[in-house]
């Protein structure tokens, strides 16, 4: 008679620790990507084709709570471009026409690494879902989270995310586009940043195009809080932020 109760108790214990609270798991994982709520992140994107470096792009990314991100394009070929993301709304400024141009979430997906890959540095604000078992990835025991976007503007409506069981660091992610097609897989590299273990690079393997790999390197992070006016689309044409 005790057996069913014992099995039930064991089953509960066997559940991943944070299974009941995916949000908490995501927040723990986010802390490995972005330690500060408001920050400036210098990002370098290296696009590899057939194992050879094809393109390099530089970005300065400013993030602020409230799902606000500002991406300043720093490469010579993209100089003068800026992209602003406020929740589900997106604007782009092109150097050929100095005016904020409203774009759709679909448009921001285009590019070497979509701007969403660069500007979205957290999951907890945008995703929710369930713990869907455990799996070992590259020898690391992981929790498998199946999470879906809670708003229309997310770059990937569905992500299967693998977090290390011991410290909840992100290890691997499968990124699905709106048609539920696997678009990219992400692997995370870690390093010591100001005494903390942080993600220093995200490697995106394109599953829609063979032999294409994108490395997103986080070169520098600094706590920085820009005023609210900087996240106003009309402010994008000003030079107060680096051009």
């Amino acid at each position: 008679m005790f057996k069913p109760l014992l099995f039930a108790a064991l089953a509960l214990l066997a559940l991943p620790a944070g299974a009941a609270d995916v949000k908490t798991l995501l927040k723990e994982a986010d802390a490995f990507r972005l330690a500060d709520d408001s920050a400036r992140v210098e990002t370098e994107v290296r696009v590899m084709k057939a194992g050879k470096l094809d393109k390099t792009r530089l970005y300065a990314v400013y993030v602020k709570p409230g799902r606000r991100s500002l991406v300043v394009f720093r490469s010579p070929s993209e100089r003068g471009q800026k992209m602003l993301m406020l929740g589900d709304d997106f604007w782009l400024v092109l150097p050929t026409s100095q005016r904020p141009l409203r774009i759709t979430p679909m448009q921001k997906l285009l590019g070497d690494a979509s701007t969403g890959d660069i500007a979205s540095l957290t999951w907890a604000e945008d995703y929710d879902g369930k713990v869907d078992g455990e799996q070992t990835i590259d020898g690391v025991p992981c929790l498998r989270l199946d999470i879906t976007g809670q708003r229309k503007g997310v770059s990937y409506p569905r992500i299967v995310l693998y977090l290390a069981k011991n410290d909840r660091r992100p290890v691997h992610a499968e990124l699905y586009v709106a048609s539920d097609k696997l678009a990219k897989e992400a692997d995370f590299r870690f390093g010591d940043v100001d005494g903390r273990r942080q993600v220093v690079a995200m490697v995106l393997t394109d599953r829609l195009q063979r032999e294409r790999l994108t490395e997103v390197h986080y070169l520098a992070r600094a706590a920085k809080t820009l005023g609210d006016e900087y996240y106003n689309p009309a402010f994008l044409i000003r030079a107060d932020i680096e051009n």
Partner: protein
Amino acid sequence: MKPIIVLAWVLGLTAVQAVADDAATDLAYKTRFVGEAHGLRADTVFAPGVPLTSFGRDRARFEQEARGRVGPVSLLLTGTFSGQQGQHAAGKPLANEAYVDFGSGENRFSAGKKILSGDVGYGFRPIDVLQREVRLQALPPTLEGIPSLIWERFTADAAWSMVWANPGYGRRGESRDDGSLALRGYRRWQGADLHGVARLSSRYGSELGAAISTVPHESLELHASFLAQRRGERFAPLAAPATIAQLLAPDQALRTVTIDAPRKLLAGFTWTTERGWSVLGEAWWDGTAPTAGDWSTLARQAAQRSALLAFPGVPAAAVNGSIAASTALFAAPVRTRRGQLARVAWTDPAASGWSGSFDLLRTPEDGGWVATLAAGWEADRLRLDAGVRYFGGKSESSYRLMPEQRVLFVGASLAF
């Protein structure tokens, strides 16, 4: 411009580049080449005047661009060396932008020469009352800013700016060079962008406009724009009936017509897919554009002028010159009052660098059209473009009357 001045400009840009290591200097450079091959229409009614115009002449330009900041000054400098078939090439250095942005918190200021584009449309922009950007050009040159003093005030979701454009000037040759005072407003409301503008100038009196842009679906963007002017102007052919003396006077070939209270209106959408396709549709009305009647009058007067060549004593130079002068109407930024634009574009979502587009602009008022097919490829620092543009339509439509039938264009730019 003399080559020595161009050389000095290039050396100046190089000198600017030389101090780029300075922490206060942050510039990016781009070299651009654009070539165009223009094909004349064999049956053009303007044939006698065409040799005096740039129609049908192949042309090329080579641009050197520096963009960024030197100390507190934001700069966009270009040196252009351009030429066309049958003429000597010439150089032109230009400070497209040179301004200082300053201020803090909600109040911000700008002083200097700055690009002031506005509005929400692609093919037509009614409330772009300051920059007055010419749209739908193939591989256009870099925009030139407007000398201005600006006071701006920002909150998280609203902004307004007071712009004194071309300070100290009144009416000048081009409307974009006129002195004017403008108030521009912006507000985010219910997920939509709302824009407003009011402008005062001696040429148009008061102008009042508004625009909206919104994204109701992850793939769909909708936009609309409206402008009301106290008065407007348009170029038109010589009033009919014209005397022989008028027909033979090049400086009377076109006249400026004042329009009372014209309106401009635009509505459009963009549909984007995750496969990299986008479809844009726009329709507009421009009460300051030439009418279908203007174009048929222009063609009729060109035929009348050509007919005068048969009469003894009529100087061919006057006929040819008058016809050539009348073709300036083809430079109107909007050809007829009604316009419809469809654009299909594709950018490889796998980021191979390839992109392509097809544009079809129709002018329902006179039955004309212009179609443009273009392709581009972009690598790390190199971008290549190529395309072809065809003009056609009913016999008396603006695009069919144009002395050119097609333009082939290629472009290459290298960033460093």
